[in-house]
């Protein structure tokens, strides 16, 4: 690992230098040399031309795959749109408009009749969910999907990763990639792809892995972030552990970052925080969309700057994925509660951030039931050594964290506690490992809210579980005939196991 660490350090330095050179300098110049407001505007305008849309967001093309991907995709766009168009934003009208414009440029394109069209491609191998999704969006009347942006077939992949990857993928490669290309052509400038898929089923996972690989081949310079829905521990699909290891290992080779949401964790949030008695998939997807919205809605591009970040996907990767061995990201947010409770609650930044930090280090997915006993290791002491995946309570070491704050008095929020070197792995300086994004614009109905995207050990345990279960099944050769039927051999499984054991070991050794 010694080599790897040195590499990372170098990479971090290079990135930081590149970043310092690329953007902040011209902006500083712009501010210092421009005396009057008018001059400032002119210079800014000049730089807009130079930097190509300094104030305009780069666009993200979303690819929704399979039943899960399409259902969540809809909720995400709906959440983004509704948030950017809600009347309260607790900020000035001008600022709200800028926020709206930024969100729109990022996720929607305009059609002639004025209804925004999601920058999305919908792919499924059976028509039911896509039809449902299209009509739900059309019914909202506020935004919709493009008329020619979906691809569906008549027969699903039957929970078989191999079928999605080896049969549906090659068979429909051209049509799907064409749809994506058309969507890309609509963007003035493309930041990257957001690919929403589950990893348990067949279409989302198998075809998703195939499409991501193709995007990597055809758009190697665009970023690819995969939103992955981690299945419930039990009950959805019996072969989910096989499908999951195949998905994860393939994405690890072709994607830039994997943003993971665990169904079990989100389900708990629905029960405990949202007070939903009978949790439905719709509820789960809405919480998920809320979390994603709180990450991807516009934020200011820097401290003291009042225009919006133009390439959040790029910035996010730059901040959070310093090394290709570590690309699993998780999201936590606070506060999260039902609308009824929200009406009677007030928050302080100090309180929110204190909870959020403890959620991070004690690896809690929600603010209820946080273990306050967990403390960072005292600095100066030698590192704790290899993490054991079986240990119950454990300090959750991070590689990198990004805190996103939205709402009233956001300037006053103190994020110093996140800069503690003890939170991070030794080979990355906190200054490189931590970043914060802010905006005064409140998110949805929350006067103040915070989201934390982190690259940490917290996914090691669920990953280890899945690999372990898949390995037990693999040892008895159960279900393998279903995969070899479509060309995925034992060797492919072994490759996947090897890669993921490596990932687990790397995260454990932070």
């Amino acid at each position, binding site marked *: 690992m010694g080599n790897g660490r040195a590499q990372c350090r170098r990479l971090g330095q290079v990135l930081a230098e590149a970043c310092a050179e690329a953007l902040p300098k011209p902006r500083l110049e712009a501010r210092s040399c421009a005396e009057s407001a008018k001059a400032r505007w002119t210079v800014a305008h000049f730089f807009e031309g130079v930097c190509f849309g300094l104030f305009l967001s780069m666009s993200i093309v979303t690819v929704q795959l399979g039943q899960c991907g399409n259902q969540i995709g809809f909720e995400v766009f709906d959440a983004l749109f509704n948030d950017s168009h809600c009347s309260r934003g607790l900020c000035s009208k001008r600022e709200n408009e800028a926020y709206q414009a930024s969100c729109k440029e990022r996720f929607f394109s305009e059609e002639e009749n004025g209804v925004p069209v999601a920058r999305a491609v919908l792919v499924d191998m*059976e028509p039911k969910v896509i039809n449902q999704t299209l009509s739900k969006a059309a019914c909202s009347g506020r935004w919709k999907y493009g008329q020619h942006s979906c691809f569906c077939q008549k027969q*699903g992949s039957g*929970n078989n990763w191999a079928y999605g990857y080896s049969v549906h993928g090659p068979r429909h490669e051209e049509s799907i990639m064409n749809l994506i290309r058309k969507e890309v052509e609509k963007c003035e400038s493309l930041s990257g792809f957001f690919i929403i898929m589950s990893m348990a089923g067949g279409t989302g996972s198998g075809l998703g892995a195939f499409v991501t690989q193709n995007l990597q081949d055809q758009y190697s310079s665009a970023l690819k972030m995969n939103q992955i829905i981690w299945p419930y521990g039990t*009950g959805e699909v*019996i072969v989910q552990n096989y499908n999951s290891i195949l998905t994860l290992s393939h994405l690890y080779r072709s994607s830039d970052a994997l943003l993971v949401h665990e169904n079990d964790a989100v389900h708990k949030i629905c029960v405990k925080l949202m007070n939903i008695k009978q*949790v439905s998939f719709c509820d789960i997807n809405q919480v998920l969309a809320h979390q994603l919205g709180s990450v991807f809605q516009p934020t200011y591009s820097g401290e003291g700057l009042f225009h919006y970040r133009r390439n959040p996907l790029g910035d996010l990767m730059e901040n959070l994925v310093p090394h290709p061995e570590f690309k699993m990201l998780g999201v936590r947010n606070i506060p999260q509660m039902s609308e009824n409770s929200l009406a009677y609650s007030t928050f302080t930044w100090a309180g929110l951030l204190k909870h959020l930090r403890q959620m991070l280090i004690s690896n809690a997915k929600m603010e209820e039931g946080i273990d306050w006993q967990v403390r960072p290791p005292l600095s100066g002491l030698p590192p704790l050594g290899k993490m054991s995946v079986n240990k119950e309570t454990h300090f959750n070491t991070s590689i990198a964290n990004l805190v996103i704050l939205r709402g009233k008095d956001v300037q006053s929020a103190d994020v110093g506690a996140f800069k503690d070197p003890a939170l991070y792995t030794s080979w990355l300086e906190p200054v490189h490992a931590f970043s914060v994004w802010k905006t005064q614009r409140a998110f949805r109905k929350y006067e103040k809210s915070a989201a934390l995207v982190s690259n940490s050990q917290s996914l090691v345990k669920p990953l280890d579980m899945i690999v372990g279960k898949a390995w037990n*099944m693999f040892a008895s050769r159960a279900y393998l005939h279903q995969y070899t039927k479509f060309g995925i051999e034992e060797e492919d499984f072994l490759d996947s196991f090897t890669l993921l054991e490596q990932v687990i070991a790397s995260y454990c050794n932070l």
Partner: protein
Amino acid sequence: MLTRQRGLAVRRPSRYGNGETQVHLRGLLTENLNLNLERSGATAATCGSGVTYGRPAPLESARWWARNTEAGAGSGPVGWPCRSMTQSVVVQVGQCGNQIGCCFWDLALREHAAVNKAVLIDMEEGVVNEILQGPLRDVFDSKQLITDISGSGNNWAVGHKVFGSLYQEKILEKLRKSAEHCDCLQCFFIIHSMGGGTGSGLGTFLLKVLEDEFPEVYRFVTSIYPSGEDDVITSPYNSILAMKELNEHADCVLPIDNQSLFDIISKIDLMVNSGKLGAAIKPKSLVTSSTGVFKNRQEKPFDAMNNIVANLLLNLTSSSRFEGSLNMDLNEISMNLVPFPQLHYLVSSLTPLYTLADVNIPPRRLDQMFSDAFSRDHQLIRADPRHSLYLACALMVRGNVQISDLRRNIERLKPSLQFVSWNQEGWKTSLCSVPPVGHSHSLLALANNTCVKPTFIELRERFLRLYKKKAHLHHYLQIEGMEESCFTEAVSSLSALIQEYNQLDATKSMPVEDLPRLNVAM
């Protein structure tokens, strides 16, 4: 129609054989009456053909259903939005297969009529009248389909070898034609009995034909197994010979036995007539009750038994017909439930057997539905999954049930069930938002469980008893292509299957432990 006229009081008759043999290939009926090796009155054939090629008047729901499930149907324009694009072809072979198929079509139509009611309120009467007064009724009541072939005489060899080769080309031609009409043919449902001649012989012959001709289309077989005290003396021969074909050529087999169906009916009768629940049960909600078209006919135990099986098929296909927040496609069933190619026998149970008229469902009752699905007396085959080893289990729920209800019940039931060491979380679930007609919710549980083994062992014992004496063997050996090796191969195929189950059962007492994983050199 002999078998149908026997009442409850007499000895339960066999549902196959008695000289009657019938073959129906769904979707090719009207044009193809000569294919029916049938002497008795109309059965499902008429049902289906009436629907499929019904009057030009827009029988939307029926047509929609027909188009989406049946090959060769729906040649006219369809006004109903297509919710599903995959099709299945139901192949009903023999008397038993046809009776069940008939009930299935009837229920399926009723289900779609009921859905229509919710969408287009004024359609209801029209649809029902159309069915009752339309060609369906006419054909059903009056038309007799008569062929010049006298059946398979309870001889698997006659069905398999004689009729098989005789009709292979004709059947194939019709099957190809039906497949051409299908947008996306996903599955063949074969309904047959194991003990008789035609269902067992020709039914399993078709299985091989289908495999060769449509290798990509799944083959689901609903097989009715003979009871111990069965009146067809050669049924062990027929069953064993058929089992070999099922082992080799089916993707999934749902074994069902008459005795279990009969026990379920008795249980319901007892409940209804005891007066304890009588008035509280919602009319027409019995899993056994027959429906619209059959209303005037006096109910016989077979109708009730057939209805149970028809309901099973109906629930099995519900996810491909209606929407739900968690769809289960038919191909997912074999993917999730069949860990090894041969172990594709799934024990099924249907709950609830009836719905109480009271509309408010306490969660307790919903939970009862889940508990019942695992109890011995709700299984459609005499087997006790609770005390055997699960390889995998699917729960297919219909109605207003949420994922949280499902999860709660799985957690609740898991400790009392034993799963094989490498599949401790072997659950597959699906939610379909449309409940069956007359119910608020329902559950179909499919279990790949070693509890099917006793049925197979018993079958083998009965076979060996006959075979040792060479009883009736000459009836088989005189058929061209039949040799003694057919019997020995069949019985060793069954023994191999039993052995596989034995090996799994042997792991039952072993502690579940994690195996050493791959090591990573850092």
